[in-house]
């Protein structure tokens, strides 16, 4: 089966970056592109929320929240013990992995659509839900519960960050407007989605290529962690999905979310709230290793894993 072209755009970006081409998305274009992606994912989740009673989703939302916290608490001791990172750095990296990457989610959704595998339409809602708890736990791990005063500002930075406002805002707009309401804005936010994602992945490829050098300098631990942690996350995500009774497609998506590491909301929040944490560590790992790993190898692997898991579950 052919490769999804959006992945090819990522590969093109990496190649251009390694060839030292001067190609780059101008900053305002990158902002436009990521704005459309975030709003679009939010809108999709909101439209689904409008379709079913929100209360019915509460148990799933709770489970996903707990999953975000558990993943952060799993990653932290690994980084602290095996990786010998300082407390703040371990906490920051752990929070990135407990949180979620919108771009990876979009690639996985595209992967399923491309193969005509259905999934629960409210999955984008979980992207929004999963962004937050890991960041809060990460900050707690980094700073302890001591400095009360900064919490207000921290919550403000997390909840009023650009990406969060667009995701949650899109969700609310989609929820209030509903399926019929969003028809008129579909051509921009839904039809163009894959094309815009292609441009986004092109830039992500260029950025990832730029992080390769930094990664080699920081030693092999992060390279290994950046591929092992997604696998742990995918197993956890698959188990949660089974527990929630999600479909095959939904299982693949939740596994991918758990496996993915944030590179938009988490870096922005940590930069402001825990500036001592070095962004080079978390970004190089999440963007330079985990993101390409997930979109090229991970998603097909989680697909295979979800198939096995669904089969085994059927047997029991």
């Amino acid at each position, binding site marked *: 089966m052919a490769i999804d072209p959006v992945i090819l755009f990522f590969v093109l970006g990496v190649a251009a970056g390694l060839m030292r081409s001067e190609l*780059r*998305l*101008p*900053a305002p274009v*990158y902002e436009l592109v990521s704005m459309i992606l975030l709003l679009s994912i939010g809108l999709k989740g909101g439209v689904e929320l409008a379709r079913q009673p929100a209360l019915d989703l509460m148990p799933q939302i709770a489970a996903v929240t707990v999953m975000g916290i558990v993943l952060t608490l799993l990653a932290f001791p690994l980084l602290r013990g095996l990786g010998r990172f300082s407390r703040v750095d371990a906490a920051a990296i752990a929070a990135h992995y407990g949180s979620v990457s919108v771009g990876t989610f979009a690639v996985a959704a595209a992967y399923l659509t491309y193969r005509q595998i259905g999934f629960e339409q409210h999955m984008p809602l979980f992207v929004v839900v999963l962004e937050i708890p890991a960041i809060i736990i990460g900050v707690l791990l980094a700073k302890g519960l001591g400095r009360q005063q900064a919490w207000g500002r921290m919550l403000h930075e997390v909840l009023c960050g*650009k990406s969060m406002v667009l995701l949650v805002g899109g969700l609310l707009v989609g929820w209030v407007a509903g399926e019929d309401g969003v028809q008129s804005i579909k051509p921009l936010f839904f039809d163009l989605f894959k094309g815009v994602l292609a441009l986004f992945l092109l*830039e992500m490829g*260029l*950025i990832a290529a*730029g992080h390769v050098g*930094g990664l080699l300098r920081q030693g092999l631990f992060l390279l290994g962690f950046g591929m092992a942690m997604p696998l742990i996350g995918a197993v956890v995500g698959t188990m949660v999905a089974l527990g929630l009774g999600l479909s095959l497609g939904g299982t693949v998506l939740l596994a991918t979310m758990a496996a993915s590491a944030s*590179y*938009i909301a988490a*870096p*922005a929040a940590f*930069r*402001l709230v825990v*500036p*001592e944490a070095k*962004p*080079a560590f978390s*970004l190089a790992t999440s963007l330079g290793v985990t993101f390409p790993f997930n979109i090229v190898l991970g998603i097909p692997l989680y697909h295979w894993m979800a198939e096995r898991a669904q089969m085994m579950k059927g047997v029991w």
Partner: protein
Amino acid sequence: MVMTAEEGPAKLVSIVTEAAVETLLLREIEAMGIDGYTIADVRGRGTRGRRSGSWDASASIRVDVVCAPVRAEALALRVKERFAPGYALFIFICDAWVP
């Protein structure tokens, strides 16, 4: 109290730092009673590596403040103290004249 750059000799304090702290930095500057500054989006390189400016995490700003000579050093020190430990930051000061 609000102070604006008065005519006569002054200092130009140029602060280059991460775009992420724009709001915090401006709050700090305004807390010193300074309410004149000019901001440009820039990119660059320094002791904390290359900042390409192409996406959020790598975006830099340059804030130029023209103020009375006596306040320039204080401004620079306060900003350094607050932001240098956690962020990419570079400050330089030039003599200026407000006509």
